[in-house]
């Protein structure tokens, strides 16, 4: 590829950031426009990439590979496949919309957008890099702006929230770093993810560390590292706080993109390099998924703060994805080589990752809209807004019903596929998990009723209807949710061969026979 489209995708925001750096701090409009243009161009490139992507190939495409630090065998490797492509589209989409969500930021606009673009580069880099070292660098690059964005532009408890977020994720990345180094030194001194996928399973086979299988040790290190990001119970408590304190746009990015990195990392790294351990850990993964579903759902039901409820709903929704990921073992001999279930589960999980990105982004924007007007988010503090703001109520209904998994909205299909995939292997667990769809409905309907139904709260009888800018940020997401909910094939076709590839890879190493 002559154009080096992937590099362009990664570095475009940085160019925007440098541009912003040279603009005087009081020219806020120009700063915002630069941010919008940078992310907009990036979105355009991502769409271009999506269209040029070869859907019939499960391998890495648009690969770029240059020497970076030859003495340590470190390369600058970028590439995209069906696993990362949806995320590569989602990231600039949400970034672009988030620029408009934060259009009215008052304080230190220059710093905000500069950091925001840096964050964008970090996220993009994580999804595109295929060299472990590069991956780790981007992973950390993304962490820092997030810390400042929460800590400086957040709510009243922002500093506490930012530090908590930072420490949690840093803890995770330390574990990840250890695992990366362990892989580096045991598997032929390379950071190349593609190579490691081939060499690591053999190199680690039978290796014991302190009496434990090296595969299990590395798996646990990586899993905890990624689980914090997802977040998987019990590593989830940073999330509600960070969401509540973060400004709306950052919540959108946090829920829409950052949480996906955990799942992406698990699929890319854990499933890629330690496929044997998948057989060992799938049961635990399913159980954790169900705990996420039930625990997150119940906690969401009890929340009084709208944003906190949405935050817990993220925990709940990503639980379904974990269940779907666990379903990969259905392809094993022990489950009768049920490839259909494995594919349903894994595609469902990946689809859920994308859908959660759009749906939770909508939910956070909706919470932000009402917060901007009322300056509080107390669910019980509203009432009857459907009469005052019918359009807003309509858009919110789309988001809420998408959240509770209504058919014709995309969340339903992915949840459905996760369940269907996991059911043959983890029957009891899944049956417990189906309670989640009731709890889901319960908390969304409860919140919807309290905010929009009933008598109009007199305090808000002059609350202005949702404005054009806010609608502009919501409508594209609503359309995507609806279109994919009615016709998910375009999405599933893109990831199909990658899904098959991952399943083949996992089956080829272990094949359902317990090797531990």
């Amino acid at each position, binding site marked *: 590829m002559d154009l080096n489209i992937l590099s362009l995708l990664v570095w475009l925001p940085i160019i925007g950031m440098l541009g912003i750096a040279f603009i005087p701090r009081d020219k806020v409009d120009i700063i915002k426009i630069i941010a919008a243009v940078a992310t907009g161009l990036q979105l355009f490139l991502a769409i271009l990439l999506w269209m040029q992507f070869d859907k019939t190939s499960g391998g890495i495409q648009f690969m770029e590979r240059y020497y970076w630090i030859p003495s340590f065998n470190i390369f600058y490797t970028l590439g995209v496949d069906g696993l990362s492509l949806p995320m590569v589209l989602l990231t600039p989409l949400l970034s672009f919309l988030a620029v408009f969500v934060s259009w009215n930021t008052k304080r230190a606009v220059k710093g905000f957008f500069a950091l925001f673009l840096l964050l964008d580069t970090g996220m993009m880099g994580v999804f595109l890099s295929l060299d472990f070292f590069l991956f780790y660098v981007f992973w950390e690059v993304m962490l820092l702006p997030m810390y400042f964005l929460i800590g400086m532009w957040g709510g009243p408890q922002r500093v506490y929230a930012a530090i908590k977020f930072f420490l949690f994720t840093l803890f995770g990345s330390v574990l990840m770093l250890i695992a990366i180094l362990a892989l580096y030194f045991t598997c032929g001194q390379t950071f190349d993810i593609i190579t490691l996928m081939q060499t690591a399973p053999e190199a680690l086979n039978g290796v014991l560390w302190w009496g434990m299988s090296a595969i299990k040790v590395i798996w646990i290190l990586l899993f905890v590292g990624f689980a914090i990001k997802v977040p998987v119970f019990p590593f989830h408590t940073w999330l509600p706080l960070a969401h509540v304190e973060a400004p709306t746009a950052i919540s959108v990015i946090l829920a829409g993109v950052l949480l996906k990195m955990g799942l992406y990392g698990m699929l890319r790294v854990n499933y890629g390099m330690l496929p044997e351990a998948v057989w060992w850990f799938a049961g635990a993964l399913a159980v954790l998924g169900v705990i996420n579903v039930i625990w997150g759902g119940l906690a969401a039901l*009890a929340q009084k703060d709208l944003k906190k409820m949405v935050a817990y709903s993220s925990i709940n929704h990503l639980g379904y994805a974990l269940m779907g990921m666990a379903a990969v073992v259905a392809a094993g001999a022990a489950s009768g080589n049920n490839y259909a279930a494995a594919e349903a589960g894994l595609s469902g999980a990946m689809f859920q990752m994308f859908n959660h990105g759009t749906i939770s982004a909508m939910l956070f924007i909706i919470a932000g809209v009402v917060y901007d007007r009322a300056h509080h988010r107390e669910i019980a503090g509203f009432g009857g807004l459907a009469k005052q703001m019918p359009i807003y109520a309509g858009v919110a209904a789309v988001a809420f019903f998408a959240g509770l998994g209504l058919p014709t909205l995309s969340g339903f299909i992915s949840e459905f596929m996760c369940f269907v995939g996991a059911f043959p292997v983890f029957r009891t667990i899944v049956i417990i998990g*189906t309670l989640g769809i009731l709890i889901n409905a319960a908390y969304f*309907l409860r919140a919807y009723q309290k905010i929009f*139904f*009933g008598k109009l709260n007199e305090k808000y009888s002059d609350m202005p209807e949702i404005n054009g800018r806010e609608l502009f940020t919501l409508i594209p997401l609503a359309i995507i949710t609806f279109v994919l909910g009615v016709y998910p094939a375009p999405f*599933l076709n893109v990831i199909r061969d990658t899904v098959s590839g991952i399943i083949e890879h996992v089956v080829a190493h272990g094949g359902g026979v317990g090797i531990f």
Partner: protein
Amino acid sequence: MNIFLQYTLLIYFLPLIAFGIQIFVGKRLPRQGDWVSIGAVLATLVLSIALFAGMLLDYNPTFKQNFSFTWLETANFKISMGFLVDNITIIMLLVVAIISSASHIYSLKYMEGDSRYSQYYAYLSLFTFSMNGIVLANSMMLLYMSWELVGLSSYLLIGFWFEKDSASNAGKKAFLTNRVGDIGFFIGIMSLFTAIGSFSYSDIFAGVAAGKITGTLLTLAGIGLFMGAVGKSAQFPLHIWLPDAMEGPTPVSALIHAATMVAAGVFMMVRVFPILSPDVLIIVAYIGGFTAFFAATIAITRTDIKQVLAYSTLSQLGYMIMAIGTGAYTVAFFHLAIHAMFKANLFYGAGSVIHGMHHALHKLGDHKTDAQDMRNMGGLKSKMPVTYWAMVISSLAISGVPLFSGFLSKDAILAGTLALVNRTGSHHLLLFFGFGAALITAFYMFRMIFLTFHNKPNKPKIFEHMKESPTAMLIPLVVLSTLSIFIFYTLPNVNPLSGQGWFTHLVAQHESLVPGNLNPSVYAIEESIHHSHFPAMITSLIVAGLGLLLAWLMYFKKLISAEVWTKRLRPLYTLSFNRYYIDELYDKIIYQPFLKIADWVAYLDWDVYDKYFINGFGRVTEWFAKVVGIADYDGLDQGIVDGFGRSTQRLGNSLKKIQTGKIQNYVLYAAFAIVILLILQML
């Protein structure tokens, strides 16, 4: 393109298009766009009639058309969607189209002047669309999706007047109660898919016939599917949402919560009947029978006219479910279609009365009196003759009086139950439920008629201002009353006592596909029903007559005092009046504990786990850091590192004293040194 596909596609998508137009631009259209929705639904009515006429001309019991396309696909996993058009579909499409058109037209006047008029029509269109999805689906997938969508439209329409808390609560309750059933439904679907690998009916039937899923698993799958029906068709124990759903506008109650949506559960059971195992069927029969009887006993003590009808709907749905359980599932479907007509009619009648009451109360400036309470009515026969006769005809139909449609299907259901008892020699309780409910039904329906339309007006002031409803509301009443006459269901047979006709010919009973099924064959069931037909008919006529007579004596002639009997049967009355305290019970043992658990989880998560455990890490680290800090500064830095410095300094201080700066001293030292060296030399 196949003509059936064309028609069904139009029938399916027209209401959806209407919904789209209404929700986005409805407000700006002339007349708020009601004509869009009405046009769409009337078009589906015409198309349905065309299909229906085609079916009658064809007169082929095994007619079946299947269309499907791949909706979603990975390498091995595939979901297809599509339509299944057979006689059941066509009949059900027509039923939905008729009731839906009636509701649309009726609402023209009933909802006139409502602030969200166009939204209302949008929701009605959405409902028609989703309901047709259930009817047309050829796979569990489309069925389940449409199933949820009717749940959504029901939610929106029940809570249409969301300013009232009771309405929005009822909508939420309906949705959530349905979701409880849907969990079972979903598990059932997943079990079938896991075993068979497809969602489409034909594959599932073939898979069950081939023994891919048997025994307990099949039974559990069947129970799962039935749970879905229990939720949607409001069977005990998930019946609680339906009476509350009466908070919605009355045409909605007629369309959704009496005639069509609540029948979706029955329809689904009819569809999947061939794969239900005998154990499931027994459970189905008992749940249905119990609901039929149980709901009827509650209906006796209702004073709200819509509540009477709501409980009567529960009871009638119970009949249908019971019929499925006894194996006579075509009869269940028969009753579904017939019930849809007369029950919608009853609701329209009730709506007409309520509409009149509202107007009268509005004129009087009275906002306190309950417009739906029968105790505020009485003697309305003279003021609202059309409404009166429509309701009487429907009540006769529901009570199972010959010449009216309800007789045919109800009789067949009771015959089916009797046949089951005769075949097996057990399950006598079902007979008690069936005939008991028949008696009570006749009683409470005519109690309602007498209280509302006969005798002296209870509130003369209101009575004076009552007048007949406008024509738009009367058209559906007349049409549906006509459709409550037996003849439409028995042609070409004109014997009012026998249900044999086009329906029984065209809706052929399907053999059970469950391998090793102990149930008798279709032929044997039909044979035994045939034998039970006559005794069942006599008994049902007697009990219906008894019920009617009792109501006549009690509420028309007042020869038996209702008050005295209320007192005599005080405990029973209290139970019935309070709906057996089921709502309160659920509130206590399910709803409140559930919320409490949620609160507890949130507390545990945030105030305990996070605060003490996670932040505990922070605190321990902090403490450790403090210790390290002390050790580092006071111990290492101050003690050792600076210690070196200090001792060096001390040494320097003591050494500097010999450096006086006086040359003489130095020379002296040198001289001493030389002397010492000399002494050492000499030694």
